[in-house]
């Protein structure tokens, strides 16, 4: 025997349509929101560097190294976003990055770039200045940006 639905048929169909929309629509929307926040953090991070050309040189070497492929620069933006949330202001981001670098240097969690001893956050920060295109483009190119064997 077929049980009668507790909801009127019209309500049920509306709910079904809304649910479908939500399932199909929430992923891209959330991703877009997150991408926008990440892009904002990335821009803020780059703005912390005043000697942009020098930073680009460091960043280029970093992205060309195996380390740059293991820990791409955009990872820094994502980490900062995850730590501070989407509403963090520029000053909070600056302080967070300084603390991060200081911690890495104190704990000797450093990497070697062309022989120079540098903290990973510094390297990622410089890496961000190299890839000027929007985050979506970077994502698409991703780890192959400077890969000699893409």
């Amino acid at each position, binding site marked *: 025997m077929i049980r009668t639905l507790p909801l009127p048929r019209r309500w049920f169909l509306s709910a079904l349509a809304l649910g479908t929309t939500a399932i199909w629509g929430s992923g891209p929307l959330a991703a877009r929101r997150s991408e926008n926040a990440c892009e904002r953090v990335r821009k803020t991070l780059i703005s912390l560097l005043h000697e942009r050309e020098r930073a680009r040189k460091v960043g280029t070497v970093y992205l060309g190294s195996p380390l740059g492929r293991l820990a791409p620069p955009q990872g820094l933006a994502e980490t900062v976003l995850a730590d501070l949330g989407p509403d963090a202001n520029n000053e909070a981001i600056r302080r967070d990055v300084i603390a991060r670098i200081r911690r890495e240097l104190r704990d000797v969690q*450093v990497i070697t*770039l062309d*022989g120079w001893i540098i903290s990973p956050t510094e390297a990622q920060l410089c890496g961000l200045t190299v890839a000027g295109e929007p985050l979506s483009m970077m994502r698409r190119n991703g780890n192959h940006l400077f890969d000699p064997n893409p």
Partner: protein
Amino acid sequence: MFIDLRTVPDGTEIRTAICIVGAGAAGITLTRELNGSGFSCVLLESGGMEFDSRTQKLYDGDIIGRPFPDLTTCRLRYFGGTTNHWSGWCLPLDPIDFATREGLSYRGWPLGRFGLYRWYRRAHEVCEIGPFDYAPDHWGIVQTKLPLPFRGPHFIPRIAQLSPPTRFGSTYGPELESSSNITVYLQANACKFETNDAESEVEFLSVRTLSGRGIKVNAKVFVLSAGGIENARLLLASGRTEDQGIGDSRHLIGRFFMAHICCWAGLLALADPPKDFYFDPGYFRTFEGGGMPRVFVPFIGLSEETMRRRQLPNIKLLWKYESPEAQGAGGQLTDLHSILHDIERRPEYVKPRVFRREGALVTGPRLFLNIEPIPNPDSCIRLGPERDAIGMRKVVVDWRVTAGDKRNGAAVLRLLGAEVARTGFGRLRSFLEDGDDAKWPADMYGDQHHLGTTRMHRDASLGVVNEDCRVHGIANLYIAGSSVFPTAGAANPTLTITALALRLANHLKEQLK
């Protein structure tokens, strides 16, 4: 009394209480201590009172391992030994150098942490240096003026004292010449120890001149003090079989050969060169305190706490200012700037800055790193097939360093790089590539300190001599000199060689009473 062995009849047998082989820092110090002791003492020296190229050539040998200084130029074979061209650096081993250390193999002296300190004080008199005091602030170095990275907790200022340098031959020769119980034989090349059937005691020592004249020395006690390589060579040459030296049932003689690992290890790009950058590691200075000026040289070391916690070796770090023309080792990132300072809005960009030092234009210093080697049984000296002018087999030096040594060096530089960056002092470019290999800069070499070939250990399976410097299993054969060092530390060895000789002399006097 000094006697040229070439004037002694062939086949002569000399009887004495103590026979000492080799008149360098160890042999001369030991012999001086026995002056007036009442025991007859013979000191044998291969050379004469002056350099002679034929005798010097007896040092010839092959180098088959890593690059190593020419064996005929890095030591001297005449009265006074290598102190005849010694530069005079003196500093004791650190307490941690004597200690066993968790996780690090083959470490530790059987003398306790302060086992030699009583003798170091007297060794200072022998080496004609200042008080037994190595605290930098007692040498005019003001800690608060030091650049931040070198005020600890990892890197600390240290000093070495400089001997005039004492030429042991010319300084102490007259004293030995006028002694009533000491006879010095020149042109006397020790060739072979002959033991009793049980190989438990040396019965006599065969000695030869370059012209082929031979004598025997019969002694109650023999002391071998011919240097870090020759000590092992003579023991190996005295064995009854091809591959086993005297008292060498465990095949240890010649193994664990160490030299300090030296290389130009990095470049320091200063963020802000201080105008009065008076702490220049590696540059000689004079201290006027204490009545008379004394020369010393500052260097950078690791704190004991850091060595222990990070399982790092002892080091000596020096630097040399480069002329701007000599610069160019900065690689692709010569203008790497301090990211940290940039985002902190302090415009102290790091790049090779040119500044004035003592009137000359210089740029950031190049770092010279001297690293304590890991004791390695595969690093060795042995006897080769060729023979020298007196018929002894020439030595083959197979000096080896390991990936562990390289890791140690790279770890020290990473730590220093992090510290100079953290404190805003500058940036460091390391010439030691990261990685788990033994790849070193092309200019890496082993220095002229030959250590470890007859290492000291209480256990005969781990050492050639015991804590009294007596060869395990042989009742009357002792060894003096740097060949008994089980670990190298970072100190130049002459002061420790002298202290050990003083200690051994005291032991022998007690034994022979």
